[in-house]
């Protein structure tokens, strides 16, 4: 096919139309980069150099949620299979303790109210984040209520969680056997959360409206994947 010819020797002296100039083609190729300005308008641009802000974006990011992925619970730094297993066991114990303390007669779990939550979750929180130091109770008065959600093949624990509207919750979540999802179906959209085995994932959420919300797995986890559901009831 020997295509060895380049532009004609006299091309430089010709009068080009704008659209046939190489500089125009090169510049136009970067057209999609202009999307940065739109991101800035939504206060979602990385290193917001444009300086635009929109205070209406809920939470300033992450789909209206603040996310923290804590280290593996086993020793803050070990990510090996053994550490993941140890972290999973520790998280399992904490979740079972949470469920046992707040289980209702119908089997669902009612998240604690704020004051109660503080006294109940303090020790666990401090154990896991010892480097943050001890925080006085007064300073934590605005702390979200901790709730636990454990994902395993093929169920959630607790399966039904009852929350209050307009109350901030810190969801403490972990997949204990394989990777899972803990997505929330919220009507016209969803909040997708990916959980990895043995990695504690914190997500702060405040539900604005009462309702029943489906919790479902969005990370393929085996043949029972479709059956892996839970429910959050907000009143």
């Amino acid at each position, binding site marked *: *096919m020997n295509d060895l010819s380049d532009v004609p020797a006299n091309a430089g002296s010709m009068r080009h139309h704008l659209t046939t100039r190489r500089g125009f*083609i090169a510049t136009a190729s970067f057209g999609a980069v202009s999307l940065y300005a739109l991101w800035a308008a939504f206060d979602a641009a990385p290193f917001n150099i444009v300086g635009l802000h929109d205070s209406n974006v809920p939470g300033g990011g992450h789909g*209206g*949620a603040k996310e923290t992925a804590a280290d593996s619970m086993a020793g803050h730094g070990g990510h090996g299979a053994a550490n993941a297993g140890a972290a999973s066991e520790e998280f399992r114990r904490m979740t079972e303790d949470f469920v046992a303390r707040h289980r209702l007669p119908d089997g669902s779990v009612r998240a604690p109210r704020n004051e109660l939550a503080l006294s109940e979750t303090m020790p666990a929180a401090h154990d896991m984040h010892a480097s943050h130091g001890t925080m006085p109770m007064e300073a934590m008065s605005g702390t979200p209520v901790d709730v636990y959600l454990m994902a395993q093949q093929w169920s959630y624990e607790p399966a039904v969680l009852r929350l209050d509207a307009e109350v901030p919750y810190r969801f403490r979540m972990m997949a204990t056997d394989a990777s899972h999802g803990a997505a929330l179906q919220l009507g*016209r959209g969803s909040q*997708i959360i990916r959980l990895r085995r043995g*990695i504690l994932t914190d997500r702060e959420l405040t539900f604005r409206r009462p309702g029943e919300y489906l919790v479902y797995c969005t990370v393929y986890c085996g043949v029972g994947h479709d059956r892996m559901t839970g429910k959050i009831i907000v009143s």
Partner: protein
Amino acid sequence: MTTTRQSLAALLRDLPAAHRALLTTLVVSALVTLGYGVLFGALTAFVRAGFFELHPETGYRFMTLHGVTIFFYWLYFGQATMLLALAAAEGGAIRGIKLAPAAWLGTLLMLLGFTANQIGAWTGPPLLYDASPEVAGEERVAAGMSYVGYLLLAAGLFLVAASAIATALAAKAAANPRVWSTIGFGVVTWAGLLMVSSVAAVNAFLPSALWAYGLADMPTDPSTGWHLLFHNLHYLPLMGTVLIWYALIREMTGVKSIFGSRFSKIVFASYLIFVPPTSLYHMFLEPGLAPLVRVLGSLLSLFISVPTVAVFLVIVVSLEASMRARGSRGLFAWMRALPWRTPEMAAIGAAVVNLGLGGSLAFVLIQERLATLLSDTFFVPAYFHFLTVGTVSLTLLAGLMRITPALTGALRAPRLLALMPVVVTVGLVLFGFAGIFAGISGMPRRVLDASYDGAAPANWLMLSQIVGVGAILMAAGLLIHVAILLAGIALPVRRTVPSRSPAVLATPDGAAFRQAAWTGPLSVVLLVAAMYAITIVAFSLMQALPVVASAGGH
């Protein structure tokens, strides 16, 4: 200066018989894996749509067979075929494929890999195409066949790519003067990227293979290796796609780039710069991802479209300017003058349309704050089918249709083939847009039954049914391509292969430079406008969700 040169098919026809047999083996392997993978894809879509029921284990096995066969084997056999064919045609003077034994060995390893993956998929647990060892659990030996299959594929692909590079280098050495041709340079770049994919596959699956056979602990973070591989898997074929456009458009219309060979080479080389670093956005949902990585991922991803848009503009502006220089008038007369009844041209035209649709949707996913709305939902397969099927697969089929006459003497049923890209695109529009709406409301990908016992939104089933109808059309269009091409190879019709391509009217007197060629730039404006609109919709939807962040926190 008007020149003609030997046609691609004629150049391949003149290859030694053993080399044509190698290309025929690759063509058949590509077509068989495409047909096989499409079949299981259609079955999976039908189950999701509720057209019939399957036991979950069988259903997920079908989903596994679809993903493994299409993403790995069809795309890599298709790319290997066209890569080697373009390299061989480029080396017309040297008459043959260099390192042909390596290319044969590579092809054999790829076929063995396919066989191993089949054994793994049919006898082991359904792992889907990422084959997470966590899901394999105790069935590690059966799962091991899947990992071995991927490793054999990687080794084979590496060898075929090496042969293509050697052929292109030999062609350059034999050329007078010794300069890279545009296609030869593109072949080497493309082959280099395929080698990167091979290494990424080894990085992703070797630890799992060692674990499967008791030689190592279970990999602690298989997802990172997978994300790196997956990015290569579905973006790097775009490099091959635009190179095939470049070669075939020149072949079919006689028009070559008016911007010159050097500019095209720079654009092809830019894939090496712009594509690999943009893989971070696949990890936005990963817990524990460093904030800096998250931010960099979003920023770098903005550049992912640069090389593809550049090649698109080079081709479209060159076409329009050259056609206007030949006398085309009006806004679209130059487009009407193109040989749309040629099946390859019809396929490339549909591929361009689908690239616009898929590209405008893809940019929502690179914004890290929208990842929690859309990642892991059906939005992802909905948009990437526009790219994988509508753009890459149709382009690879265009290439296969172009080179098949060199092997069989004629392309059967060209009129029917020229209609199929339209059928595929209509199917894609149904599949894609129903899937987009479903994904926006959170319908997950990779589930067989998204009803969740009635707890899911009521429209998910209806949207899944539209997806299923789209899948029928897509599958029909692709399978007809496969059947006609395979029939042509099995029952060849001997006709004369055109020995010369149309006259190359690159820049006969510089007339093309003076023409206004606005169609390409306006298409880019429309593409960016669509990206803006979709991004605004996604942010607005996110703001309307009944959940907000709380103050304080960890």
